[in-house]
């Protein structure tokens, strides 16, 4: 179940974190995976793990905010593996935690270019290849975009991030309606706080700056998840794999919330 044998996946931001784990899970389930990222060294580590487990994957260096690089990434996937069936729009940044009044337009635009433009461009450029192969699979092509619980609710000092993730949520629905006749499904995944390198990035700074430091931050965050823990990368990767597989053939335009109950309270 949740197999993706013979399918080709592009995973943006696939070097590490949720993207890296999704790459491993999809490869394990039978997909050929193109990992794209700016982080070449970490991508090599993920590639090695996939190959060691008997999977198939390649790396393509790629900035999701640049349109020509999306064209090149899709071309690379088509030349390497014959087409694209699954796109995981995972690359994203959290942005600096700044109050709205201090957020520069440049910072806002930079975040939008990665978190929102990147998803638009990814969808736009995989459509032709995905369309041509959608008939091969009972569930057609599958686009999965990583939004966030912050695509539903607000957070202080995260105005750009929340706006971008809310945008991903509704862009997903618009694309789902538009691409349904072409047999391409489009769904969003909404993680709660996940134990990733992105989350741990602020550890040192927090330990120096605040009382209680990083551990207090984690404890506070955990307490907002009724299941009483942070999410793990594989929690999200399993949802991604389900949406990538033909087992979710009748799902499009939906939001899969994987948040330990954060939003339900």
């Amino acid at each position, binding site marked *: *179940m*949740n*197999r993706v044998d013979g399918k080709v996946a592009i995973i943006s931001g696939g070097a590490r974190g949720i993207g890296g784990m999704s790459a491993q899970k999809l490869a394990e*389930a039978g997909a050929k995976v193109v990992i794209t990222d700016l982080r070449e060294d970490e991508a090599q580590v993920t590639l090695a793990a996939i190959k060691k487990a008997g999977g198939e994957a390649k790396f393509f260096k790629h900035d999701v905010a640049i349109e020509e690089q999306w064209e090149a990434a899709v071309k690379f996937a088509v030349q390497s593996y014959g087409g694209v069936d699954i796109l995981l729009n995972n690359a994203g940044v959290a942005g600096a935690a700044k109050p709205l009044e201090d957020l520069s337009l440049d910072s806002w635009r930079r975040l939008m270019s990665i978190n929102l433009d990147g998803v638009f461009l990814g969808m736009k450029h995989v459509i032709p290849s995905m369309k041509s192969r959608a008939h091969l699979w009972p569930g057609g092509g599958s686009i999965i975009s990583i939004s966030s619980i912050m695509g539903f609710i607000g957070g202080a000092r995260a105005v750009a991030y929340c706006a971008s993730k809310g945008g991903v949520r509704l862009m997903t*629905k618009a694309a*789902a*309606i538009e691409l*349904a*006749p072409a047999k391409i*499904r489009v769904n969003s995944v909404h993680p*709660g706080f996940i134990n990733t390198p992105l989350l741990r990035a602020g550890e040192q700074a927090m330990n120096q700056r605040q009382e209680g430091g990083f551990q207090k931050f984690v404890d506070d965050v955990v307490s907002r998840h*009724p*299941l*009483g*823990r942070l*999410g*793990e990368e594989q*929690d*999200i990767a*399993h*949802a991604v*794999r*389900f949406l990538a597989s033909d*087992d*979710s*053939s*009748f*799902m*499009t*335009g*939906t*939001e*899969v*919330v*994987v*948040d*330990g*109950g954060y*939003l*339900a*309270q």
Partner: protein
Amino acid sequence: MNRLDGKVALVTGGARGLGGASAKLMAAAGAKVLITDLLDEVGAGTVAEIEKAGGNAAFLHHDVVNETGWQNAVKYAVDHFGGLDILVNNAGIADAGKPIIETTLEQWRRVIAIDLDSLFLGIKYATPALGARASKWPGGGSIINISSIMGLVGMPNAASYIAAKGGVRLLTKAAAMELAPSKIRVNSVHPGFTETDMVKNALKDLGKGVGVGENVIKDMITARHPIGRMGVPMDIANAVCFLASDDSSFMTGSEVVVDGGYVAQ
């Protein structure tokens, strides 16, 4: 993937339709399945089918609005299979075709009893057994409530069904919050119109309500699913099986919408 080895599941309304497909798929994934239903012969047939495929299942006659019936059903699962890990609250009726103004209080109460009271009773009586074994599994115990897209949006001439399914949606979240400390996850599934006997009859009634025939109403309803078809029971069973498995360990209080894009537009 989505494996359920060693787990015990109780599926209400498990003789046929969504419940039957879920029972079969969960058995194929390794679970021991107690099918409960009012349809004894059909239920016995489903058990025979599961056993023929090498699975493990049993049938129990069970009226989901009967409190003693619930106590018996949970006891039967514990006595027969050693415990309970998964509860699929699937039994329900559709009541369509009449506007609110023509619906009697008795009709309203009957639908609310079967589609909503039954879930309250199921959660109430299954929780001790689920909690007793929750620590055995990374994902704990799992309750899956079958709501509907009609728990998310309205339509004419089905008010009691829609009210009940909306109730299921929020009952799920309330129970998810309450049961998280006991390691029991609670999620709802929201099917679009799916090819089952129940939906077939409901479509007839809906058609009568607006003065069109069975085929015309079916085409009208199918056209509201951007994917261009109605669902099939296995579409829903795949989502149920995912939520039953430890692959969804970090999901609770979530709504999994399996509707071919119906509510996204």
